[in-house]
């Protein structure tokens, strides 16, 4: 089965406060940047095998739903890399 790389970007939902982002915004302002807003998140890179691209996307979606993001507070997007050994 070909290898895929799924990059899952997890970030707090728009209505959820992101105190880490607020702290970073304050620090960037202290550096002299006119920063309006900062949102922080996580990038999770998963390398795995799947039968084809559709199966890989499906697997990445399941990983996001069941573990990588908490739907109560977070949204996520998936970037699927081409198979490494196609």
């Amino acid at each position, binding site marked *: 089965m070909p290898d895929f790389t799924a990059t899952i970007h997890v970030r707090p939902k728009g*209505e*959820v*406060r992101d*105190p*880490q982002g607020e*702290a970073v915004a304050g620090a960037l302002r202290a550096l002299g940047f006119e920063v309006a807003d900062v949102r922080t998140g996580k990038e999770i890179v998963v390398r795995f095998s799947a039968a084809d691209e559709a199966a890989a996307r499906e697997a990445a979606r399941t990983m996001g739903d069941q*573990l990588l993001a*908490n739907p*109560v*507070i977070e949204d996520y997007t998936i970037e699927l890399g081409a198979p490494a050994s196609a």
Partner: protein
Amino acid sequence: MKVAILLYPGTWSERDFAHAFTLLDIEHEIVWHADADLHGFDAAIVPGGFSYGDHLRAGAIAKLSPATRELQRAAAEGMPILGSCNGFQILCEAGLLPGALVRNTHLEFRCDWVHMRVESDATPFTRGLGGELLRMPIAHGEGCWVADDETLARVESAGQVALRYVDERGAATLEANPNGSTANIAGLRNEAGNVLGLMPHPERCIEDLLGGTDGRRMLELLREPVSV
């Protein structure tokens, strides 16, 4: 009454609970999460700590433990279940309680004493304590409870807010809230009332030596088995 105290890798408060139940003369056993079988137990505790190092999110990896399915089964059958601190986070991640616990709004790990008012006595751990003020220690970095507006309205109207941070006079002020939690929520119960989660540590205030005994008032209620 026999109480199961669940132990995950990274749990740190299981011995404090065991000590508390020893003092209270309540039979208990520390149970490894992967072997968790709650048959033969009358209540379960999900203690505080840093299960799986809090990696990804607090409680996120622990929710995949076989213990979660056992907790779900036992909860559906009405077993009294108490989650404190990381235990509260695990119960939310596992879907046994609504909402989620996120970073304290001030980003600090807060180790302190707080006051709470008992808002719901419809749990096995707050029976007869309605309206009482309790003083307990906290020690957490991710105790800010959040949910969408609809969930918040639902838990408020259903009386699921079991404990609220208040000041010494019982006012739910901004200053009394140690972590920015929505509506000063310190503890929540499920709809049936048998599952309670709270950020404070009742097991750490059960004798004068520890600076307070209000935790005893909750934990000693387990002496008398109840069906909710």
